């Protein structure tokens, strides 16, 4: 665990030492703020819970995009610059490297996501929503962002360059987002299985409504686990090149 934290600490520091971390952070805050004003607050009178659900709906998009941008550098950048050798020639397990890097991205993404909390707090002060609704929405955002980040870590482990890593991760996330469309052309039980795989449609909506379901939490946990497991295997495979 010590090795994981050492790597996570260095990579988290790298987000704050380089411009890209601040740019992503600022863009997310700006876009979330604009969407909140334009669509959540700027539309005709609605119930507070609907405004909050709308906020989480928009935030899920920016969180996913930001997670892909944060994760693309995790391993691909190290491969590009040759710094991965420092880690692979050290007495570290491949899982320590992957988990450390994932943890750094998750910490940064969490900080970025939670820094938008002032917007729902405005609804809490001026409207009628519960703390539970707020909590479930942010739990959903962190789970969705964490899962996207895990997929991005896999993309970064597979790719040689950051751009390629972003493309691979983006394709995987879009496939998981849109696979529910297949339910229109498939019958039971295939359509149910496909729907269960959908990253957003089946599993995120309940969080925006203030409902936390164990199945949804398990789903995001499982997808993250599989993605990180494959990323570890991908790193191991480099030794067999």
């Amino acid at each position, binding site marked *: 665990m010590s090795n994981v934290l*050492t790597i996570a600490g260095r990579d988290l520091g*790298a987000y704050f*030492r380089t411009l890209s971390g601040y740019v992503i952070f600022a863009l997310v805050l700006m876009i979330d703020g604009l969407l909140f004003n334009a669509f959540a607050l700027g539309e005709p009178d609605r119930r507070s819970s609907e405004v909050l659900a709308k906020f989480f709906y928009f935030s899920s998009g920016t969180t996913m995009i930001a997670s892909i941008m944060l994760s693309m550098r995790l391993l691909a950048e190290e491969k590009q*610059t040759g710094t991965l*050798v420092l880690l692979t*020639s*050290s007495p570290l397990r491949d899982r320590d490297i992957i988990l450390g890097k994932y943890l750094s991205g998750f910490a940064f993404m969490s900080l970025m996501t939670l820094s938008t909390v002032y917007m729902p707090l405005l609804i809490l002060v001026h409207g009628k929503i519960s703390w539970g609704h707020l909590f479930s929405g942010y739990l959903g955002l962190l789970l969705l962002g964490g899962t996207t980040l895990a997929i991005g870590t896999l993309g970064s482990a597979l790719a040689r360059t950051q751009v390629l890593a972003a493309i691979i991760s983006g394709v995987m996330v879009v496939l998981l987002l849109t696979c529910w469309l297949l339910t229109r052309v498939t019958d039971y039980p295939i359509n149910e299985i496909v729907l269960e795989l959908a990253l957003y449609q089946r599993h995120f909506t309940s969080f925006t409504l203030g409902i936390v379901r164990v199945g949804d939490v398990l789903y995001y946990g499982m997808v993250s686990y599989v993605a990180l497991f494959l990323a570890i295997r991908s790193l191991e495979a480099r*030794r*067999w090149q």
Partner: protein
Amino acid sequence: MIEVRGLTKYYGDHAAIRQLDFDIAQGEVIGFLGLNGAGKTTTLKILSCILLPTAGTVIVDGVDALSNPHEIRKRIGFLPDTPPLYNEMTVGEYLTFAARVRGVARKQTASAVAAAEEKTGLTHKHRELVGRLSHGYRQRVGVAQALVHNPSLLILDEPTSGLDPLQIVEMRNLIKGLRGQHTLLISSHILAEISQTCDRLLVIQAGEIVRQGTEEQLASSMGTRVEVEIDLEAESPAVLEKLRALPQVCSVVVDPQQNNLVRLVVTTEGDHRPTVVSAIVAAGGRIMRVERGRARLERIFLELTKKKEGGDGKEGQLS
């Protein structure tokens, strides 16, 4: 300390190295010589447990590198041809991180970093950003990260690559300073560096070790011919006649230079420079300059690679 037996690595159908066998004793400084693409880096990466071999064994201090790579990595420090540096960190932060991932206990990290900085002359750069360092200092930081955990074996892949002459001298002195503290395996195709810093040489060509031993042993195995360049004030048939009459002289090549100078390239069986010079003086020749010809190690290296390449010595790639 290190036993390598039958080490083989294939990339697809291409054998990068084939059946390498060599030993390295504790405290030795070994020069690993070879042309670009000869298999040096692949071998070093396998020794550093970054790559797995297709076949063969590597034993370090009695520990098998294949079955226990973690234990081996604790004992080895590796500097790749491009130092693995994080530009956004200061030298101190970077070495602290390197020490932690290389297994130095938290309490000993500060002293390990200080010791590595002292060995590599980086103490005054502790707070400087790695990205703002000169190429020479970056290379030093690369060496420092390799030795921060005080490994018994240091593997340096092209440590003088891209350095200017002053930086090369500094790096050479740094490597000489590490002698006795670590076993060193230095890969290079800069022959002067190898000649001045290493006890023993491994010459690799097309993925195979073609010769190993001290420079003396390699020279004697290659024959003992020595080239001497002598500049004379003017061409003298008497001098040429006298030289060609010497039993030690194999050949004399005349190469006219500017300002009426004449350069003689005299090849002798063994080092007979005093005899050659005496003969020239006795024949009335006026010597302006005497210098040993092409460096011995370079000649050995070219001979070995020519043999392997079928006559193409690729001299253009030598530094």
